[in-house]
């Protein structure tokens, strides 16, 4: 009986992993051979709706000045009719609030929102920011992101199409050289955006709004019910609600935004854990509505199922390995076991944003960054790490679900400017290692002397 069960599990794993492999292969070949769908970039600079930029921040003094100054450099009109930036200081205990107030004194289009009460977390902060915002389009950034000069124009261009409810830009790591992990994550991101996201958009499937470096139309957000403060993956949550209601989600590969990826494996573990739990929670919440939606095509629904179930492949792979071990000891080897294991391995990169190695290979060629591809075999380490981390996270998630508990939000650790070690005292003055507010003032002084 155990052997029979193991054989069934092995076959199920084989079928699921083969399906994911086919999906990733299709995406890679589509990107190599097919033309792209309209990405609206020709409209950049011509369609300039009113925009509110929301930046949730919790203890972000290490990175807050960089994103504010990057937005000050943006080529979007900095007048009240067109642009407001709302950094949301969400229960910070460091100098983030003082830094934001300092910038607000300097730039009238910065309107900091200080949250000291109420529910914590990114989704709650975004909800508060949305209530304060006046823009027709809401663009969200994580605090560690660095938007390029033209990013806002590229991101808002697709909103000229009234059917577009959300837009996603491409995320590119800027700290690639920091460690082996950051180099591997750079490959992963390249495959995930250049091939996976773009192919999904081109094929009329569900491109994913990633919660940062992307925008949402206020009307679409309201019809979808706003930000879900109960979700650990508010981006996937919103993506599904928009898609189910028939809103288009556009992906603009040209709209590049630079992020700080985790430099330590511990930081990566926490990030993957949060994504896995939040994403799988969305699977339980939206699988039924997705399949019943009258607004989606059959192929979009099918791909939506793949998208929602992607983190479940990690425990499935582990189950498949256990099944093959049982079959091995039962003398049931030969082809079926071999194929199951082989496909499970080659499809290994189907975890999270992890693309298969075909996708990563195709993306580095499209990017013209072929030297990076030599690191690809080392991604096996990332695969093993992600598979075990996701499997453990999902065990925690299902155990918590059974007990009726929700898991807390884990903020991703920052490494820029000393990882937020600059502290400020109660008057908002810098102390400790001298970073934080003093950096802002020093930069302002440098700008003033430069302009004079």
């Amino acid at each position, binding site marked *: 009986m155990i052997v029979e069960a193991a054989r069934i599990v092995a076959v199920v794993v084989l079928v699921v992993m083969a399906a994911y492999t086919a999906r990733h*292969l299709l995406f890679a*070949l589509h990107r*190599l*051979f097919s033309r792209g769908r309209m990405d609206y970039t020709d409209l950049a600079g011509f369609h300039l709706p009113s925009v509110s930029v929301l930046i949730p921040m919790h203890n972000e003094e290490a990175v807050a000045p960089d994103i504010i100054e990057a937005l000050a450099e943006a080529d979007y009109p900095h007048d009240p009719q067109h642009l407001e930036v709302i950094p949301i200081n969400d229960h910070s205990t460091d100098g983030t609030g003082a830094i934001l107030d300092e910038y607000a004194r300097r730039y009238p289009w910065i309107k900091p929102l200080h949250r000291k009460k109420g529910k914590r977390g990114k989704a709650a902060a975004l909800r508060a920011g949305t209530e304060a915002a006046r823009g027709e389009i809401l663009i969200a950034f994580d605090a560690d992101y660095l938007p390029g000069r033209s990013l806002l124009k590229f991101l808002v261009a697709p909103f000229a199409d009234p059917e577009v409810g959300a837009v996603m830009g491409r995320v590119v790591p800027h700290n690639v050289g920091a460690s082996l*992990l950051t180099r591997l994550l750079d490959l992963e991101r390249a495959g995930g955006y250049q091939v996976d996201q773009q192919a999904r958009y081109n094929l009329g499937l569900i491109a994913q709004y990633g919660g940062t470096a992307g925008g949402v139309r206020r009307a679409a957000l309201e019809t979808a019910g706003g930000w879900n403060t109960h979700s650990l993956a508010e981006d996937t949550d919103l993506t599904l609600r928009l898609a189910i209601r028939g809103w288009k989600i556009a992906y603009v590969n040209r709209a590049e935004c630079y992020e700080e990826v985790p430099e330590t*494996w*511990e930081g990566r*573990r926490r990030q993957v854990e949060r994504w896995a739990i939040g994403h799988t929670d969305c699977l339980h919440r939206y699988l039924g509505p997705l399949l019943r939606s009258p607004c989606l095509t059959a192929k979009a629904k099918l791909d939506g199922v793949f998208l929602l179930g992607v983190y479940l492949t990690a425990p499935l792979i582990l189950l498949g*390995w256990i099944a*093959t*071990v049982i079959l*091995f*000891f*039962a*003398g049931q*080897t*030969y*082809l079926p076991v*071999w194929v199951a*294991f*082989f496909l499970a*391995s*080659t499809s*290994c990169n189907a975890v999270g944003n992890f693309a298969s*190695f*075909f996708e990563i*290979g195709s993306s*580095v*060629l499209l990017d*013209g960054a*072929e*030297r990076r*591809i*030599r*690191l*690809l*075999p080392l*991604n*096996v*380490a*990332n695969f*093993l*790490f992600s*598979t*075990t981390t996701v499997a453990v996270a999902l065990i925690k998630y299902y155990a918590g679900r059974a007990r009726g508990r929700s898991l807390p939000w884990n903020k991703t650790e920052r490494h820029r400017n000393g990882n937020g070690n600059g502290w400020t005292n109660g008057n908002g003055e810098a102390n400790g290692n001298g970073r934080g507010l003093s950096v802002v003032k020093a930069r302002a002084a440098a700008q003033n002397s430069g302009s004079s």
Partner: protein
Amino acid sequence: MVFRPGLLFQGFAVAILVDALLVWQGSRLLGWHSRVVEALLQLAGVAWEHGKDLAVLPGVSVGLLRTSYLDYQTHPLYPWACLAAAVALLALGLRRCPLPLRPLLYLVPLSLGITLLYLTRVSPTVPYNPEDFSTIWYRGETYLWLLLPWIFALGFFVLNVPMRLKMGWLSLLLSYSFLWSAIRLATALATFHYLGSLWMPFFYFAFGFLADFLYIVAFYSLALGQAGALLARRREEWQ
């Protein structure tokens, strides 16, 4: 243009031709493989004799080698000593090994532990003798060799680079796969001879399919790296 749909069909055509060649010359290739294993076993001081003929595919067969493996009835402490050594190495490795590679460290003690559990609770011997292990090995590896041209057809032949570069990398991959397979099989048989069948699942899984997967990705990345550099040079010349 870097990519052309016609190149995909070129890749498929090459994959069909290479597979046909492998099947046509299969018995001869497997015979060479077997001789490499014989030579390596001789080097390791492992006695062997010719076993049965295995039909891997219709018209493709290989003579298996019959070797012995350590009998745990007469050496009952060996499996425990192996497991203890593996656990000790794991404990040492956990302190020095980077976090992402730690799951790999668990593979040896885990596979040995499961096998020992099987040997003490289910049966005093594993279900396979070394000849059976070679049977499984030859079947798996032969199917893999037939699959390799298709992996490259989809991932590498689609690039608009000279045919000699594509064929060169495919030949190199197949040659490496062939030689590395013989080395691993000989290592496995020698390990069973000296340390017993406890190591069989480890060689089947970690030193078998996982090792196959690693070199396939490594060759793919190296080939793509070289092809990408060539394409970049072309772009520069054109600009």
